[in-house]
């Protein structure tokens, strides 16, 4: 076995990779990614052909296909130049370290084709180009599903479907539909997965002005993150949304079995250190653990103003610490201008450090490896986001289907925590404050109004 020398001891190349949690070579990841996208595309096209064939028998519809799109062009500046501000672990670069002003954080373009084949059968394909985990803008299929409207109040969708866990899950990428530059990162990074390949069922109950919608989803997902390739299996979510006039209240429960390749190789390395190592591996292993999320959200929007908030807890039972996040936001509409104020907070519910393996009990040749593993473990635990942000901004509806937004964020990082920042440089120390200034233009086109 080929050996390389490292400070503090001898480690194999494999071990070194495990310790540093280096992801699989890009070539392999791209291949895996391409294969999955190809399979999804073929599935989507097959569904499309089936749906279109079914439609041939029905000529009652007026407009079979609707093409539309949405997008954001924006730039964000960060005062912290030793780390990047991003909207989550699916973005490779951000504002601060990579670029003082980054256009990569918020800019995106989405295209959607909706086919209405019969009164019961419709399909939607949504493709989005945005900054990916590998710093490319290769478009990906966000949604591709066929919907069967069984009754006016009951429907079933099959294919790639939104993972409906947050109040704004459906529109989290359509910023024109949202009041802010971007949904609060503290809350919207709790679950970084946005879609699921599988099935969902929805049922609506009406009583007077009150509408209650139940949605259940089941599926799998293979998202690529900067920290590794995730495999989400047996993903199950249920949500109940109650709408009464201008008020909406929603509760969600979700659970899934998660695996992230890079993190699993780290915990596997601990298993070679006897019962103490196995205990640590069992505690921090991601693979096979059931992750759970519970959240509630509410919005009241009578027209002239809005107030909305969400609270949620994500339990990972692994090296991905259990986190609780919430936000509260309000805005007031003054003709075309809507100023708003948001407070958002995320904290860790589990410990963000661990003494790890007891070095003193180990022979010298193993101690070096143990030190490295302990450091890698604490590196991940310590990067658990702890932060809160105050945001002030305004949306200006300056022309049809287009808005301009200006937002200032003051992020206060928890002691020693990098918060939601990424690409941490060696000189970066957690804690302290980060100031952001964001300018965006959001737009929608086609579909509605054309």
């Amino acid at each position, binding site marked *: 076995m080929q050996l390389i020398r490292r400070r503090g001891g001898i480690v194999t190349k494999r071990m070194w990779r495990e310790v540093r949690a280096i992801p699989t070579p890009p070539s392999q990841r791209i291949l895996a990614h391409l294969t999955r996208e190809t399979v999804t595309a073929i599935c989507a096209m097959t569904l499309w052909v089936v749906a279109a064939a079914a439609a041939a028998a029905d000529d009652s519809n007026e407009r079979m296909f609707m093409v539309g799109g949405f997008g954001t062009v924006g730039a964000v500046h960060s005062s912290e130049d030793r780390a990047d501000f991003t909207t989550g672990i699916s973005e490779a670069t951000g504002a601060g370290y990579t670029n003082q002003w980054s256009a990569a954080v918020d800019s995106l373009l989405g295209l959607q084709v*909706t086919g209405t084949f019969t009164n019961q059968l419709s399909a939607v394909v949504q493709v989005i180009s945005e900054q990916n985990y590998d710093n490319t803008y290769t478009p990906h299929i966000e949604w591709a599903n066929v919907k069967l409207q069984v009754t006016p109040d009951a429907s079933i969708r099959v294919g790639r479907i939104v993972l409906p866990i947050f109040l704004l899950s*459906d529109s989290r990428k359509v910023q024109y539909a949202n009041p802010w530059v971007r949904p609060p990162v503290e809350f919207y990074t709790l679950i970084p997965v946005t879609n699921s390949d599988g099935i969902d069922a929805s049922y609506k109950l009406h009583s007077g002005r009150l509408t209650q919608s139940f949605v259940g989803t089941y599926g799998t997902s293979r998202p690529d993150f900067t920290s590794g390739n995730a495999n989400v299996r047996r993903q199950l979510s249920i949500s109940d949304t109650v709408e009464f006039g201008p008020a909406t209240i929603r509760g969600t429960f979700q659970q899934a079995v998660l695996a992230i390749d890079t993190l699993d190789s780290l915990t596997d390395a601990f298993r070679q250190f006897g019962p103490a190592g196995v205990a640590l591996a069992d505690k921090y292993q991601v693979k096979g653990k059931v992750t759970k999320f519970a959240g509630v959200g509410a919005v009241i929007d009578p027209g002239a103003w809005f107030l909305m908030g969400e609270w949620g807890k994500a339990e990972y039972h692994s090296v991905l610490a259990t986190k609780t996040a919430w936000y509260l936001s309000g805005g007031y509409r003054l003709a075309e201008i809507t100023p708003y104020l948001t407070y958002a907070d995320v904290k860790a519910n589990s410990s963000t450090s661990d003494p790890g393996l007891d070095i003193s009990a180990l022979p010298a040749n193993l101690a070096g490896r143990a030190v490295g593993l302990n450091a890698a473990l604490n590196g991940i635990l310590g990067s658990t986001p702890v932060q809160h942000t105050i945001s002030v901004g305004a949306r200006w509806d300056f022309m049809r289907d287009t808005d301009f937004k200006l937002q200032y964020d003051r992020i206060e990082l928890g002691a020693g925590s990098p918060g939601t920042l990424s690409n941490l440089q060696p000189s970066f120390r957690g804690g302290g404050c980060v100031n952001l200034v964001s300018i965006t233009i959001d737009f*929608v086109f086609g579909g509605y109004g054309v």
Partner: protein
Amino acid sequence: MTMPGRADLQLIALAVLMTSVSSKADVVAVVSSKSAITALSKSQVADIFLGKVSRFPDGLLAVPIDQAAGSVERNEFYTKVADRSPAQISAYWSKILFTGRGKPPTEVSNDFEMKKRIAANPSAIGYINAELVDGSVRVLY
């Protein structure tokens, strides 16, 4: 007392003109006179046009019809029944449209076409300038 100058007169004329433009005619929600629906509240009308309910209170299917985007009638109507500006309505529908969960009402190009469509379909609900109301349609709100 001095006589108003030419520029002042122009300003007054402009002010009068703007007043007449901004005091737009009243827009009313209507159904066919063949419909069984005789009255709806502001919030019931809003819920139908925002796609929150798909049926009239008596359980019959409700088919909302919009006037053209940007038209005075449409802007007046949504301000009146939903307390929402054209931009808010546009943002509202983009949210629903880009989730594949629904689509905005079909559109007609003017008051006359609207009245024709409403009169012919007992399920349809729309809105027209109050001055154009006749025996073929019934005012709800």
